[in-house]
């Protein structure tokens, strides 16, 4: 069941089209990666979801109903460009932001104390924000994002600026939140964290959505039928005995044996490869190469750019 659906969202700024008929569906209780190069329209999309700006066209459904102003309180948002009032006390400020999200003073105080304890910020309640380290400030920002128990969490580049320890802390919290029922949209360039966390993704490039779906399914469709073979007993070019339709991408000699990457024609399988190989070499291992999200990202973006070149690149 989907928590959130964006239908045909378009948005233009003067001559520049920031989003062009984007459809995105986010299943409930999933971690949804919103990917795309810089300037693709991710932030615009996130701002539309947060009702910071309104789309020119299209609508957003939340829980199957058209999203209204009151749904904003069910969203927690950690913007990419984030900060706090420097001169304000930490606790006071966290309370203020929690109350702006519709919490009562009492409820907010209680929950904030819990989270401040958990993130080791307890002693900092009455200090000014400017006295905190950057990492601590980001913890405070994370806390105020999730404090009101939102159904939908939107993190825009959440890990930028965090040290590795805090990145792990954050990842754990994000997974816990998902397991406790929250749905998470998560915009990033960091493909490693996408592989690690995301169940679904959508890829936006040049204001259009060019790819979306379940991460495993996408990887499957982007498989190139390529295998990596580790073998011994043959040191010349494999192409001497392999059929010409087998494309040897790489072959190199290692300390004990050789490695080769071979792409098979679409109708061939592992067995076909083994059948050709075994008479000549002794195979030690065979693995299918599954494309990383990084590869998919680059491939999808370059493909789209070559088909519909960006208007700005033509002009420049």
């Amino acid at each position: 069941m989907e928590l959130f659906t964006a239908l045909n969202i378009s948005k233009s700024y003067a001559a520049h089209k920031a989003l062009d008929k984007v459809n995105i569906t986010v299943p409930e209780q999933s971690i949804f990666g919103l990917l795309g190069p810089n300037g693709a329209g991710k932030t615009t999309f996130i701002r539309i979801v947060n009702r910071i700006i309104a789309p020119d066209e299209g609508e957003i459904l939340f829980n199957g109903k058209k999203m209204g102003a009151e749904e904003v309180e069910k969203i927690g948002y950690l913007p990419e460009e984030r900060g706090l009032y420097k001169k304000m006390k930490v606790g006071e400020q966290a309370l203020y932001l929690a109350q702006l999200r519709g919490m009562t003073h009492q409820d907010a105080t209680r929950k904030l104390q819990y989270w401040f304890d958990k993130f080791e910020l307890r002693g900092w309640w009455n200090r000014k924000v400017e006295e905190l380290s950057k990492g601590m400030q980001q913890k405070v920002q994370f806390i105020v994002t999730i404090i009101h128990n939102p159904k939908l969490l939107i993190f825009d580049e959440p890990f930028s600026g965090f040290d590795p320890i805090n990145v792990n802390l954050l990842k754990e919290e994000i997974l816990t939140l998902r397991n406790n029922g929250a749905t998470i949209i998560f915009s990033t360039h960091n493909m490693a964290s996408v592989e690690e966390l995301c169940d679904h993704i959508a890829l936006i490039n040049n204001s259009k959505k060019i790819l979306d779906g379940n991460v495993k399914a996408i990887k499957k469709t982007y498989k190139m039928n390529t295998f990596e073979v580790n073998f011994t007993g043959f040191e010349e070019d494999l192409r001497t005995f392999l059929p010409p339709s087998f494309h040897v991408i790489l072959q190199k000699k290692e300390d004990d044996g050789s490695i080769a990457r071979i792409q098979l024609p679409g109708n061939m399988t592992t067995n076909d490869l083994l059948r050709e190989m075994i008479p000549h070499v002794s195979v030690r291992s065979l693995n299918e190469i599954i494309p990383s999200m990084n590869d998919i990202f680059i491939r999808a973006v370059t493909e789209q750019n070559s088909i519909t070149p960006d208007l700005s690149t033509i002009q420049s």
Partner: protein
Amino acid sequence: MKKIFLIIRREYLTRVKKRSFIIMTILGPLLMAAVFIVPIYLATVSNESKTVAVLDESGFFYEKFKDSENIKFHYLLSDLNSAKESFTKTGDYALLYIPKTAVSLPENAIIYAKSQVNIMVKSYIKDVMSRQIEELKLEAKIRDIQPTTGGNLTTDDILRSIKANVDITTIKIGSNGKEEKSYPEVSMFLGIFSGILIYFFIFLFGSQVMRGVIEEKTSRIIELIISSVKPFQLMMGKIIGVGLVGLTQFLLWVILTFGLVTIVTSSFSTRLKPNAPTEQFMTGQNQIIHADKPASPPNPAKDNKDNVNEVLDAINTIDFPVMLSSFLFFFLFGYLLYAALFAAIGSAVDSEADTQQFMLPITIPLIFSFVMAQYIMQEPQGPMAIWFSMIPLTSPVIMMVRIPFGVPYYQVILSMVLLLLGFLGTTWIAGKIYRTGILMYGKKVNYKELWKWIRYKN
């Protein structure tokens, strides 16, 4: 609505708790009190003896004004016109005229003087008159209640009923015998004072709004907040919050200034009534209405007297809440109008250094109206005065300069309506610029760009 209240509260509390606010709150009254106290002090220390001629047609005050160290009195028995004529020829400092009254006790008087009347002289005369009238009233009261001894009148009731309410108008007589209402002295003071107050209030707190917006933008908290509330709510919350800070400061200033003035003046001289500055305020306000009535027409003495009485009676019917409420209105809406523009500027730039190019169109009408104020005072009913007191960008200062001189009600109301419309208009435009500007970083914004933002739909 609850959220805008939260924003107002934050904006208010963070500013009121600042050290600079507390320092300003203490320094302001010290400065303002000095403005009041120094002239009073100087008047007290001057040794020059002043002679006041008294023309008492009511007959209640004959020989009641006793000579003091600095003030000598002598009594005239002529009519007003000849008294005035001889006054211009003698070296007398002032001519005190107490007109005859038909029924009540004379609580109004006119001081004719060649120059501005010394506040101490005025206060002394007022003091003597009040005491005399209270005495007379008390006598009458005692006569009244004698037959019903043990009646249910308490001391408080009696004290209240005998309270004298003396009003003194001052009129300046030139050496050529030409009369000039000298209350412009008071009106000028009042007009320029309230004009300057509004001017500073707008600048001081308008730029605080602007700095607040820039702070939110540069600290990058803005996106977090406008995902909870509408940009317009945030803008209005900030404007109202800062405005309340200003009002708080203003009220504290007024209270502390009066407190200080009261303490200091009462220690100067026991003769000087502690409420001397207050009195000056009150007389100023009371004189609004008859500003455009002829002071004393060159008629025979009898008509003249009646006319003066009419004017004096009119004074008592004026409610100075009008003056006060129009001050509050122009004070608040002038601020609101400009604060919205200041907020829009703050949203369009990345740092305070970039504000210069946009500040100019806002500061020009403000500084212009400030400079114009002195010309307006010379001709408060002239076409320039009327026009600039209608244009919303200049009306808060100019109208307040004009009001103590007497402005027809329709003009005041028209100006208020225009200012209100101006406020709605600038806030609407500012809201549009603000909405786009606060999310715009690293872009060099010019007027063309701003115009584009205004035209963006939603």
